[in-house]
């Protein structure tokens, strides 16, 4: 170990100011502090410091995501075997899935590292560990058969436009991982729009996703009945909870997402307020819509057009369908782009829940509403904070009169 330390210390001199390699100092700093914890000293102010740092914070989020990766890989293999009509072992399924997940993961990290490191060098800031989380999140939001060049494009766009042009971690407005996802959604709609099923299978293999079923019903019925009538995949509540359904790589198993949420809340890293209020918002709006659908179909507000089956999705179905939980736990809680005040966090989360249902149900052209809802609320988070802080200012003014 001492040998390695010595090499690092010696090589570090090459990166000092005025030396030929000084431009790459952030790269050396990152390597150095990943291998050995920093020996930076408390200078003034508190002479002692907590053992939590950004490296560990970000690393913990990545830990919370690992189970989603493992299950995602297995699920791809499982659905593949089902579609091909072959019986296969769990291990075999997992390996098949990994052949799809690993390339996406590697390409994401290559693209992310190139962007982050070059910006760190150009802008002369430290390489922030936050990019690890962004890069760990992006593959989980991808369909398994997404072309790798699109992943590269999407990741670069997410990191650069979502984060770096605003000044890097800490000053970004939009969640970089979701920016990447949104870019791909609108740039390559044939691969990633989300109405057709995302599973690997024989050529031309396709089907309807859970959200697409009530969005485009052959004949109007309630969402529950439509799900029950769907034969290609098992869209029952239990199966949607356990996640053996097609979807983005990381979002299908809800149990693992909930475990991740508990882990992050327990460690004090992710905001439970945002998670809880997201669910509140979703339940509130979906109950409202259920009521509305009841009134329009059977009740007094009978309208002329075709009734919207999306309005009949129950709150529990909304929670389990699609990426709502994944987005709530891992995306909405991103600390920089969410609200920075506790009151703000409640409002921010609630509105994400509300917008998710609105985008899903009222405008079925975008079956998956979560990522758009979060991005929209990312945009409004500073505004929410502004009003929360203004109320504090007003309170202080009144107190001082």
């Amino acid at each position, binding site marked *: *170990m001492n040998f390695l*330390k010595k090499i690092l210390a010696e090589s570090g001199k090459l990166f000092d100011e005025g030396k030929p390699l000084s431009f790459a100092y952030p790269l050396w*700093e990152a390597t150095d*502090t*990943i*291998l*050995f*914890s*920093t*020996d*930076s*000293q*408390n*200078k*003034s*102010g*508190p*002479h*002692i*410091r*907590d*053992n*939590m*740092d*950004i*490296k*560990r*914070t970000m*690393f*913990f989020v990545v830990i919370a995501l690992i189970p989603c990766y493992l299950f995602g890989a297995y699920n791809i293999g499982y659905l593949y075997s089902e579609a091909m009509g072959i019986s296969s072992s769990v291990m075999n399924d997992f390996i098949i899935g990994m052949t799809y997940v690993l390339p996406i993961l590697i390409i994401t990290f290559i693209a992310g590292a190139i962007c982050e490191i070059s910006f760190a060098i150009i802008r002369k*800031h*430290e390489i*922030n*560990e*936050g990019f690890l989380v962004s890069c760990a999140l992006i593959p989980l939001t991808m369909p398994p058969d997404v072309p790798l060049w699109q992943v590269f494009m999407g990741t670069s766009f997410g990191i650069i436009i979502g984060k770096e042009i605003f000044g*890097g*971690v*800490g*000053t970004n407005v939009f969640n970089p991982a979701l920016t990447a996802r949104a870019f791909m959604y609108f740039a390559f709609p044939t691969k990633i729009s989300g109405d057709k099923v995302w599973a690997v299978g024989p050529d031309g293999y396709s089907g309807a996703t859970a959200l697409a079923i009530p969005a485009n019903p052959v004949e109007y019925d309630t969402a529950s009945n439509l799900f029950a009538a769907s034969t290609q995949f098992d869209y029952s509540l239990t199966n949607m909870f356990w996640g053996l359904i097609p979807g983005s790589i990381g979002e299908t198993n809800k149990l693992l997402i909930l475990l991740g949420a508990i882990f992050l809340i*327990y*460690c*004090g*890293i*992710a*905001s439970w307020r945002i998670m809880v209020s997201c669910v509140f918002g979703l339940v509130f709006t979906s109950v409202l819509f259920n009521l509305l659908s009841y009134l329009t179909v059977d009740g007094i507000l009978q309208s002329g057009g075709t009734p919207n089956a999306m309005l009949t999705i129950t709150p529990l179905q909304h929670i389990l369908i699609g990426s709502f939980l994944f987005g709530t736990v891992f995306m909405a809680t991103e*600390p*920089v782009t969410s609200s*920075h*005040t*506790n009151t703000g966090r409640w409002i921010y989360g609630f509105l994400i829940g509300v917008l998710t249902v609105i985008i899903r149900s009222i405008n079925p052209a975008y079956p998956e509403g979560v990522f758009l809802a979060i991005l929209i609320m990312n945009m409004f988070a500073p505004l929410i*904070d502004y009003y*929360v*802080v203004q109320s*504090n*200012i007003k*309170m*202080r*003014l009144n*107190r*001082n009169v």
Partner: protein
Amino acid sequence: MLKIKVKKGHNINIAGAASGEILAPQKNTTVSLSPENFRYIKPKLLVKENDSVKLGDPIFFDKLNPEIKWPAIASGTISKIIYGERRAVKEIIFNVDPQIENDNSSGKDKKLSNKDDVVNYLLEKNMWPFITQRPFNKVANPSDNPKSIIVSLANTAPLSVDYNFTLASNKDSIISALINLKKLTEGKLFVAVRPGEFNYLSDLDFIDIVEVEGPHPAGNVGVILNHISPISSKDIVWTVQGHHLPILGKLFSDGIFDPTMIINLSGPIVKNPSYFKSRIGASLESHCKGNLSTDKARIISGDVLTGKESMMNGYLGFYHSSISVIEESFDRSFIGWLHPGGSSKYSVFNAYLGGNKSPYSFTTLQNGSHRAFVPIEAWEKVFPMDIYINALARSIEANDFEEMEQLGIYECDEEDVALCSFVCPSKTDVGAIIRKGLDTVYFDK
């Protein structure tokens, strides 16, 4: 009686708390008075090197406010005057002569009936610097009319002196000090205590007792004021350090200046952490020498959160009552950020397995690199005031005067946010930001 229950905050479980016996230090042959301990003053010396002085004699005055003079904190000779950049006076070192010191019977009880009497008495005795003010945490201006006066006898900072123990024998002088402090304000005189301590104070009908419960920073005057009587931009509140009450009390009742007080020496690498019967500006060497288990020590005048880094040959700050010593560590552990936990890791986050249980040996390690600020509700966990500290820090960094005032910069001081810096995963020095904001608004006024 007012009661405050503070929930947000954290008592740092640091090793090396002083035990309950009072020792005598090795000879305090030199003591020091440093103008650097006082903010926003321009000191002008009234003495030269080798002058002989008596306790309480004027040593220097503030050019900006010439009526405020600083007292000699020892009888003897001025052995050395240390200058800093541009010949600013950094430190005045006294050689203590015990012979003259004991011959200190000048005073006589004087009838002080109103504010002017008390102010003039303190100014005349050169004792005014004991009175400080909020906002800005500086020496008070005698011509101000404070909204209230507050004294906190509930010390919650890590490894700080326990006033219930150190001031146990000072009942009469504390009461004498409080009686006269009350004359300084038309408002209230708040005295903060922990439940069950200083019970005799409840007999004094002229003070308002504030019972404080909860973790640090519950005992800070800034936090208490925020709960009971928040400071606005026009308000000024005066305050006195708890350990200075007996000194003021004796001055009022007997007319003598007695600079002795009980301080503590504590910290993880102190062999025998204990209390000492010491004095203002005492030399650190006389307490620390031979009492540290390693040479790589950072000796701090004050507590580990807000104290000032000093050296073996340094001195206790004017307002400080404790010496804390921690190890200067440069240890680099392999892949430290992956460490599972155990007794070697301390965190207010549940990020390590089985930590925080036994008293932890903190070192000077920052435990992480400085990074851009990521708001994961860390500051808010330990900041018990109704101020959006995050928004305030931003307005300070943006140099937005108006917003700083609106968000309550006047209610904060560095010590109130020290825990925020302690917990911050990005290793931001929040105290420095708040001080920058206070300086900005101070010089703008």
